[in-house]
């Protein structure tokens, strides 16, 4: 049974249909790609899946349970986590605080513990911190844990975002252009990290990516989106040679 099933999802911005009859089925452990030219509606789909927007039509089922219409923080604590295309980090907070905060929904010491610093709180905070350090270690940024994110180089910021997304203990991870703005060397590192995350946590990953090389290497199946509609779906090989995909990216031959 697929962990996430999206059926016939559409979304309108006023009179503009940004996503049209989108379907998706993703199982634990799968890596799926989502490609398409700028403005095709890829990020909108992420925003719909994570509850930032509510779909106009259609259904999103997580474990067979309908989640559209739930607030974003609830969906996140149910196991859908994401990174953002343009790095939405909290600029005055340290790296460690970023990762710790992503465990917010599982904190049990409550307001009483927060106000009066009970022993329960200290124990729980220490546990959260230990887990956070493990994730930072995995991302290779443990030595930066006390730094405020504002001062970090771009590649490190990407890793902070990834660590933060993983700290929510997701089952499905949505990565929105994780390699944007990276050079060749950083690209290799981030792909390595994605693979490791996938192997270690056994997550389902949905990946938006512009660099075809990354998608082709990582993903089992790829969907191509244009003007909000899926125009092609299949294995990397099939997608690469699909004339519709080539049209969407490069334009029709007759135009040239």
């Amino acid at each position: 049974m697929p962990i996430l099933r999206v059926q016939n999802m559409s979304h309108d911005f006023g009179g503009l249909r940004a996503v049209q009859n989108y379907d998706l089925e993703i199982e634990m452990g799968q890596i799926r790609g989502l490609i398409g030219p700028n403005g095709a509606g890829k990020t909108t789909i992420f925003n719909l899946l994570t509850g930032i927007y509510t779909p106009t039509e259609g259904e999103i089922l997580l474990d067979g349970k309908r989640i559209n219409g739930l607030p974003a923080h609830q969906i996140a604590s149910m196991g859908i986590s994401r990174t953002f295309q343009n790095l939405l980090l909290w600029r005055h907070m340290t790296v460690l605080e970023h990762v710790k905060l992503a465990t917010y929904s599982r904190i049990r010491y409550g307001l009483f513990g927060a106000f009066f610093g009970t022993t329960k709180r200290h124990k729980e905070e220490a546990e959260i911190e230990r887990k956070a350090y493990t994730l930072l270690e995995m991302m290779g940024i443990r030595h930066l844990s006390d730094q405020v994110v504002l001062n970090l180089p771009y590649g490190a910021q990407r890793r902070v975002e990834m660590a933060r997304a993983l700290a929510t203990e997701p089952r499905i991870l949505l990565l929105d252009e994780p390699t944007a703005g990276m050079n060749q060397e950083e690209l290799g590192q981030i792909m390595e990290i994605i693979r490791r995350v996938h192997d270690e946590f056994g997550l389902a990953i949905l990946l938006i990516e512009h660099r075809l090389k990354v998608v082709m290497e990582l993903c089992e199946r790829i969907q191509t989106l244009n003007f909000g509609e899926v125009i092609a779906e299949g294995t990397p090989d099939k997608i690469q040679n699909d004339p519709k995909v080539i049209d969407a990216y490069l334009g029709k031959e007759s135009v040239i």
Partner: protein
Amino acid sequence: MAIKVRTSRNLWASYSRVPLLGWFCGALIAVTLERFAGTPIALALGLPKIPVLFGLDIMLKKPILVPNAILYVFFVYGLPMGVTTRSSISLTNRLASRLIRFPIAITVAVHLALLYTTLHLWAGISDYRSLVLKLTLIAVMLTLSLNVINGYMGEFSCSHPGFMALGAYCASVFTVGLFVDDRFFGAVFLPPALGPFLFPIALILGGFLASFGALFVAIPSFRTRGDYLAIISLAFLFIVKSLIENLEFVRGPRGLSGQPDWADLPTVFLWTVLCVWSINNFVRSTIGKALNAVRDNEMAASAMTVDTRRTKIVAFLFAAFWAGVAGGLFAHVLRYVNPSTFGIQNLAEVLAMVYFGGLNSVYGSIVGAVSISLLGEALRPLEIFKWIIIPLLLILVMIFRPTGLIAFKDLDVTSLLRPKQNHGGEV
């Protein structure tokens, strides 16, 4: 010349090794000296009496006495503190390193006891000093609680004097109604001997009433971000003020007086410590850090499982609670409240303290509240010019340090109390 520079640098460097315990001991010695030898020193220096606020009042009233007042401050505070802290560095460091091994509560209690004794001796010189000190401590509570909203949460709230008024009136009605023979509230209801024990309940009730009032601001304005909170909270301030002005049972604009004298220095000090402690606990917990996340990027916060609306409402009510408690103390320190106290000017003062001291920082709030309220008192002889100098200072701070003097700094009690020099085999 080079040697001179180096020795002065060494001198400063040695002071950086003085632990907090050393500074507290030095201050205690200085105020003890003032207590027992202050008057003779003042007379010998040609001053009429002990200068109340570090000589500033005397300097402004009689500029001819400026050198005398400076000498007094030097001989009574500067010299004893400078000499004792410097000469006892190794002793105080050893004491501090021994003290830090105890549970943190005991270490903190020792430091607070030292601080309180110092303040008590300092305030014991005159009633005026004691009043200024109590009002300063109340200002610390107000500033810190406003910083939770304006600094940590990054919203702009204007209703703090309103919360203060709610707390002040609620606590006053409680104490005057139950313990004082009053024309409006009737005879004494409970024996006044019980009073000091029930006083905390009065304050807490005041705090809860303020939180309850805050709910009416929070629910509509936290649906979205933006300037709504500023406008709604300003409206709330005026609603509270005109409500009290029109309530005959608290005597409307004439104000309510006759509060029993229960807000003495230890009580105010204890409540201030409680306030600083709980707010610092809150903002350093992961639940409290959610405030910073909501401020810096709300969308990312909710995508990382943070319930943003609940976070904002909780913090707002918590801040209002402490403003209410501070209001209750304020009413019992002055033993008189009237609604016009809680107006725009009060708001401006609290906001000035928050932004002067520094956003998102407990240190900043303490520094801001203490410096602005002491400055306000010390510059009182200048009358109207006071309101030119303080805003000018604020403008200068905004130009050179836009987020305030000490912004974005965590108050970590353990590292604050730690010895500054190692002893024996310890690393």
